């Protein structure tokens, strides 16, 4: 495609006053004939001017030197065939920089230079990017949605899917649908006035799902293998508990110190048809478009007693002492018959009256223990707000069953009754026979007459207390099914289940706050208690959300665009395979497992799994991965377009800013009229994960004094839109450090900082600190070469 650029420089929003626009325009190379200034480019007349040039002059790349790309993108949308390049003179230059002499009539030298640089960089990028063409899979996309799990969440999700006009298939391991919701006596209230227990809603949901023509329910079946990608998931099923030839092979453990990266399971199998090869295709597999994972939870179980180290035995040197598991011995679970979990009590209550397990006598006083105590205020593992409401609910059972003098005690460290549940808490509190106190339960023991004695310290009564009760109920948690089991059995190069589950205690979420329902496997969405311990009503709401995500995914895959978070992005990574060295870095680093690889290690892209973060592009040492509108060359040419003066008092620093948090935060700096050094040049990147080391090398060899990378926070509470991007960049940083030393350059010249979008006020300080460091280190010796 022949590029024809048109350049439009805006004089509005103070640009005309702060900058010498004429001088700026002269910086456009003479070969670009169409170059215009306009008082307000975003006005109807300005936009019309551009449209005219597109129509009459054949302009196909519009370079607008005005405001940030984050504003007015709808005004400057000229259709998919026209490339729009924005040069950020407003937020990035005049709003965020004060002239050295505020009374000078002439525009400030440094600010003018900055604008000129940005214009040059914009022109360089505009020359190199192309309009995107959406990816179209060769095979037809299936729009059916697979729901794994036939509990309240799965059935509700299937109904939501069906009501939206799509087909849903529910797979349930057990012989019956309904899950734990079908084993309850009552439900916590979910309708006005939110005070009284309600009849379980599950039966009605089951009936509705069974009757719906667009819902298919299969029971006694589980997943052997899921291959493929969104729109093209090929699923193999098997009767529950049986073996199948298509069972996913065990993942190969990475051996520390091993030279070669591990081979994909079954890679040594000669025939691609052998089921042991994860790339083999099951001819019998059924195709689905998206998957809703609603496999729910398992009751928490007492950890098996670990053998105490024998006396006199010293722990081996160098061995880290293992984190101490909290002890549950003092509560008597598993030892005293009348100490049970909330799950056991619920099942008993659903069957009939609450009776003491030891002798079958009615339980008229029951203590609910919400926290194992012993100095810690942590609740039981995998407990959540729901555990509090369940205790209140079961306390009401005790009052209902045990007569007017029945007593239910709740010992808690946290009573978490969120939202409307506060009304339920209040109504339970009103009951004369329900006694609540914060307290540290220190022991549960037998009293001799069949009752138990519970002792608790530091209660609200102002002292240590003991009570005599018939039963003790422990508020134990709901363990997600994904904790110890891959559940999905994905035929993915990166493994059969979700990744980094230890970050979330086994819950399969990619980012709980920002992207609910999302996982790190595109096209697979989670809902209900597999995502978080929650109530039946919350599960139903979750199901609706997930159903919409699944539909969005299918419709995006169908049109060849990205689902999330770059919703609607038509570009996708293009691999120049002739130069691939099979190093597998892209396959391994992709946060979303979008790439499989063949027996030689050549990546096999699955574009519908891809989220277009560019991590593969950043990872590739051969620089063979590129996007139509975002490439090694497009960013590299911007770096090269920067003017690097030889004067020592005009240092140059390149900032690579993540466009999700850092770049908007930099815009906010301008919006708030804070200011930072005019010697920096900012280039937005899709994600720091897409940062390729070659850009750093180019910049340094050009004489640029320092490079600052600004990305999202990573680690346990990461905020990266692509989960691993900023973390991967930091790993690459370490390698850059070594390379710098070999060039006799100081390590301090390249740094990475983490920032959240709301921390814009910190940016001027961060940039100043970096400039100070650069000043200390001195100018880049490569300057002028």
């Amino acid at each position, binding site marked *: 495609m022949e590029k024809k650029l048109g350049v439009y420089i805006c004089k509005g929003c103070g640009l005309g006053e702060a900058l010498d626009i004429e001088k700026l325009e002269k910086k456009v190379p003479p070969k670009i004939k169409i170059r215009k200034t306009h008082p307000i480019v975003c006005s109807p007349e300005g936009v019309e001017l551009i449209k005219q040039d597109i129509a009459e002059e054949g302009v196909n790349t519009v370079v607008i030197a005005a405001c940030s790309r984050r504003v007015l993108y709808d005004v400057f949308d000229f259709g998919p065939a026209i490339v729009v390049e924005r040069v950020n003179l407003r937020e990035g230059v005049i709003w965020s920089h004060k002239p050295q002499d505020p009374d000078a009539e002439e525009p400030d030298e440094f600010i003018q230079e900055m604008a000129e640089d940005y214009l040059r960089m914009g022109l360089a990028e505009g020359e190199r990017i192309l309009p995107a063409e959406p990816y179209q899979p060769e095979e037809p996309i299936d729009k059916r949605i697979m729901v794994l799990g036939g509990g309240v969440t799965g059935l509700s999700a299937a109904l939501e899917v069906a009501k939206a006009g799509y087909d849903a298939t529910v797979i349930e391991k057990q012989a019956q649908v309904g899950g734990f919701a079908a084993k309850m006596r009552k439900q916590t209230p979910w309708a006005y006035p939110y005070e009284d227990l309600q009849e379980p809603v599950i039966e009605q949901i089951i009936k509705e799902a069974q009757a719906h023509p667009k819902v298919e329910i299969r029971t006694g079946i589980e997943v052997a293998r899921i291959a493929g990608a969104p729109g093209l998931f090929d699923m193999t099923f098997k009767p529950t508990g049986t073996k199948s030839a298509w069972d996913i092979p065990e993942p190969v453990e990475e051996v520390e110190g091993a030279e070669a990266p591990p081979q994909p399971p079954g890679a040594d199998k000669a025939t691609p048809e052998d089921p042991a090869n994860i790339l083999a295709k099951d001819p019998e597999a059924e195709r689905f478009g998206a998957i809703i994972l609603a496999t729910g939870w398992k009751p928490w179980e007492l950890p098996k007693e670990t053998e105490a180290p024998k006396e006199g035995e010293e722990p081996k040197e160098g061995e880290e002492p293992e984190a101490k598991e909290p002890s549950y011995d003092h509560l008597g679970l598993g030892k005293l018959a009348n100490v049970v979990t909330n799950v056991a009590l619920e099942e008993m209550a659903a069957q009939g009256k609450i009776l003491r397990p030891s002798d079958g006598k009615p339980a008229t006083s029951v203590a609910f223990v919400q926290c194992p105590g012993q100095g810690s205020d942590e609740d039981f593992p995998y407990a959540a707000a729901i555990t509090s409401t369940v205790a209140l609910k079961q306390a009401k059972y005790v009052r209902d069953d045990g007569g007017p003098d029945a007593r239910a005690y709740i010992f808690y460290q946290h009573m978490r009754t969120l939202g409307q549940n506060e009304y339920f808490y209040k109504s339970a509190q009103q009951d*004369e*026979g329900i006694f609540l106190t914060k307290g540290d339960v220190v022991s549960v023991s037998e009293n001799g007459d069949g009752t138990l004695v519970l*002792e608790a310290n530091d209660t609200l*009564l*102002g*002292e240590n*207390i*003991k009570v005599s009760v018939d039963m003790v109920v422990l508020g134990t948690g709901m363990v997600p099914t994904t904790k110890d089991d891959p559940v999905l059995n994905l035929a993915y190069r990166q493994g059969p289940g979700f990744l980094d589950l230890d970050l979330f205690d086994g819950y399969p979420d990619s980012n709980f706050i920002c992207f609910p329902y999302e996982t790190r496997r595109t096209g697979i969405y989670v809902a209900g208690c597999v995502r978080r311990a929650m109530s039946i009503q919350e599960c139903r709401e979750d199901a609706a959300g997930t159903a919409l995500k699944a539909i969005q995914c299918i419709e995006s895959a169908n049109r060849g665009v990205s689902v999330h978070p770059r919703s609607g992005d038509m570009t996708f990574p293009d691999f120049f395979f002739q130069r691939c060295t099979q190093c597998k870095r892209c396959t391994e680093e992709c946060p979303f497992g979008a790439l499989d690889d063949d027996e030689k290690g050549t990546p096999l892209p699955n574009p519908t799994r891809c989220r277009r973060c560019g991590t593969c592009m950043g990872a590739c040492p051969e620089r063979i991965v590129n996007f139509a509108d975002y490439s090694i060359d497009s960013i590299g040419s911007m770096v090269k377009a920067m003017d690097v003066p030889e004067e020592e008092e005009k240092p140059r620093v390149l900032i690579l800013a993540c466009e999700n948090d850092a770049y908007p935060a930099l815009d906010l700096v301008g919006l708030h009229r804070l200011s930072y050094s005019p010697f920096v040049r900012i280039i937005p990147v899709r994600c720091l994960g897409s940062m390729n080391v070659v850009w750093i090398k180019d910049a340094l060899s050009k004489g640029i004094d320092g490079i600052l990378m600004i990305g999202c926070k990573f680690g346990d509470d990461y905020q990266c839109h692509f989960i691993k991007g900023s973390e991967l960049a930091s790993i690459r940083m370490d390698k850059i450090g070594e390379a710098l030393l070999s060039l006799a350059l100081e390590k301090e010249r390249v740094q990475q900082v983490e920032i959240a979008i709301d921390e814009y006020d910190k940016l001027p300080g961060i940039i100043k600190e970096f400039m100070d460091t650069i000043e200390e280190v001195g100018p880049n010796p490569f300057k002028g070469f």
Partner: protein
Amino acid sequence: MANSYWVEPDVRFVKQLKRLGGDTLKKCYQCATCSVVCPISPEERPFPRKEMIAAQWGLKDKLVGNMDVWLCHQCNDCSTYCPRGARPGDVLNAVRAYSIQEYAWPKWLGKIVPDGRFWWLLLAIPVAIFLFLLGVTGHLHIPEGEIEFAKFFPTLLVDIIFVPLATFWIPVVFGIGIYRFMSDIHKNAVAEGKAKRKDLNIPDFLKSIACTIPTILSHSKFSQCTENKGRYLAHILVLFSFVGLFVVTNIFFVALYILQIPGPYAQANPVKILANISAIALLVGVILMISNRLKDTGANVGKGSYFDWSLIILVLGLVVTGGLSQLTRLAHLPSIAYPMYFAHLVLVFCLFAYLPFSKLAHLVYRTLAMAYSRYSEREPCD
């Protein structure tokens, strides 16, 4: 653990407190706003937060015999600021009502006096006694001539009824309750660490009573209430009018039996003036109390239970019947004056005879609790 407290919640006790005006007690969620805003609670182990959870848990032994319950003047600053509408002030009032019943002897009277179903019986007792005595002595008719109440209800007859009531019934019956009350609050205060002084020395305690009297007379505790200023005036009027009427009655008694001066006194007589001023003060005070309660829409005064209202109505009845007796006497209306006087005496009987069982018992219990608080060095003497 040796120092653990055995908790045995009494569900029935909770229900009883709810009936006695503490129906909001279960709403408390222990934020302790009440103890913070209370203007009269001591800094160490302040009330009413701890009393609220004890009430919720039905821990009778922590409430009955707890002096703090009596240090509360029901300002209801706490109820105004309570974020849950638990009304701690009213709950403590209910605890006091329950405590009065608990310490009452004989028990059955303690049960029926606060029970709204038996008001007629309580009135019927004096009516029956009076009618019987009047009948026996042949006075059961309206006398002729100048109205003189002694002609209808001989003073001697009045004194035969009231002197034993004042000198025997009240001291003995109330004395039993007071004795048990005192030993309980001492035990509780020592056990809960509220008392700095652990012994119980009678002369020192009497000194503490002496130092409490000015506090009571000046209503200096009451005046610290911010939410409930109106009650300060009403209560002080009622208290002082009772003091005035008590003085008048004693002068009258001395005058009659020692100085041999029978009534009625002339209107200009200083004693008569004191009596009338007291009566008017009482009328104003009680009307203020009623209007405070009726116009109250917020948290201020407290909803009031039967226990509370029955005393107010009785006092109103006293002042109305007393006043009308005098006015109809002066207006020469014997057919109204004599029955009015009869009614007045019935009500006076009720006031005295049921004193240890009615809300009026707070006159003694609160005084003793305040004195004990000073004695045990929980609060300083003013």
